[in-house]
């Protein structure tokens, strides 16, 4: 494997996702390849953000290692909408962002500031400072309901509400299935970006209690703009081959709305509520994979790691 992490493409330069089903995935040279009736299809996995494995896929241990080394997220997805995620190391070796996220999450007043900022992004006008969180949630509910109503009116697809059964994919109406497929893509891409940048998918601000809480927080920023209009548009066109066409449209929309370029930037901006922003620049830890990190010290700030502190400290 190439030593320098510099060579790995940034999230913004990546391909958003690749969905495959009914095939075998194996290691091929230093990357991976898909094997099916049409032969072997090599995949440049360092360029890929997210590999979605649909029904009927099998993947080897070596392929998973190659994907993890290249910072490509792997998601098992099913027609039933059941998803399980796996990821190797993200594309950073630096924990600054995660520490910041944990800090903001752990202090209620800071956490509330992040939550307000997350909501503020979604409204065209600023939220009044006097609004309580409960009132903001109410406003957000209205906004989402309007977005569905608007998309329904524009596309002519009737809308009766968001209903889906996780156990029975086929039972949902086409528009709900299209929404699930589009959101599944959006979650995967946001999840991959979160991990690649070195944040935790579990430490959510608005959402809480799930291993993917932060993924839901981030994806919610983009649903009204991207996945809701797509789902209605695709259902209005035809009921044929719905999920596949939705994913195709997602790819175009993610490109058009510059999702991959925005997502890491947006998260960094959201988590700069206390004034301390995290500039992306390359850190030493990123450049030297094996370099030891520091040791925490409550009094003198961090001290350097990789040093045996039992030795007498040289003077001068």
């Amino acid at each position, binding site marked *: 494997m190439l030593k320098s992490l510099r060579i790995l493409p940034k999230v913004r330069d990546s*391909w958003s996702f*690749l969905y*495959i089903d009914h095939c075998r995935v194996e290691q091929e040279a230093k990357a991976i390849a*898909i094997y099916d009736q049409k*032969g*072997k299809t*090599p995949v440049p996995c360092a360029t890929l953000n997210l590999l979605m494995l649909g029904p009927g896929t099998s993947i080897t241990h070596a392929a998973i290692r190659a994907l993890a080394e290249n910072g490509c997220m792997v998601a098992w997805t099913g027609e039933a909408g059941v998803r399980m995620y796996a990821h190797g190391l993200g594309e950073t070796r630096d924990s600054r962002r995660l520490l910041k996220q944990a800090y903001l999450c752990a202090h209620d007043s800071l956490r509330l500031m992040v939550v307000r900022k997350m909501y503020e992004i979604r409204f065209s006008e600023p939220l009044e400072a006097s609004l309580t969180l409960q009132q903001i949630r109410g406003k957000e509910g209205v906004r989402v309901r309007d977005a569905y109503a608007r998309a329904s009116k524009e596309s002519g697809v009737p809308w009766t509400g968001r209903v889906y059964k996780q156990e029975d994919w086929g039972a949902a109406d086409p528009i709900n299935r299209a929404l699930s497929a589009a959101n599944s893509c959006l979650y995967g891409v946001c999840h991959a970006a979160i991990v690649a940048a070195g944040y935790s998918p579990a430490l959510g601000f608005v959402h809480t209690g799930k291993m993917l809480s932060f993924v839901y927080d981030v994806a919610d920023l983009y649903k009204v703009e991207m996945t809701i209009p797509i789902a209605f548009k695709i259902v209005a066109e035809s009921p044929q081959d719905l999920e596949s066409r939705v994913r195709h449209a997602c790819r*175009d929309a993610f490109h058009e709305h510059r999702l991959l370029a925005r997502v890491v930037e947006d998260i960094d901006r959201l988590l700069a509520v206390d004034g301390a922003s995290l500039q992306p620049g390359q850190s030493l830890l990123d450049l030297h994979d094996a370099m030891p990190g520091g040791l925490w010290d409550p009094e003198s700030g961090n001290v350097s790691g990789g040093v045996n502190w039992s030795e007498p400290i040289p003077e001068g």
Partner: protein
Amino acid sequence: MVVFILEKVPASVRGELSRWLLELRPGVFVGKVSALVRDELWTFLIPKLKGGSAVLIYPTNNEQGFAFRSEGNPGRTLRDFEGLFLISIQ
């Protein structure tokens, strides 16, 4: 920018392309022509391959940043994965 890669094609076809493009290596042509000229060159090429193969690559505003067309060489086929283009090898 456009890139044409030709394999086992008659010399006259290469001659035709060399009027528009630079032949960096045998069969590899590169240059900057309009989309119209590019498409005309491609349409011109197809019937004249005589069992050879041709690939055309050009930049475009999609996620991958480029698009390509391929003709001949059944061992390598272009596949569309819901908008992401990859090459399958037989």
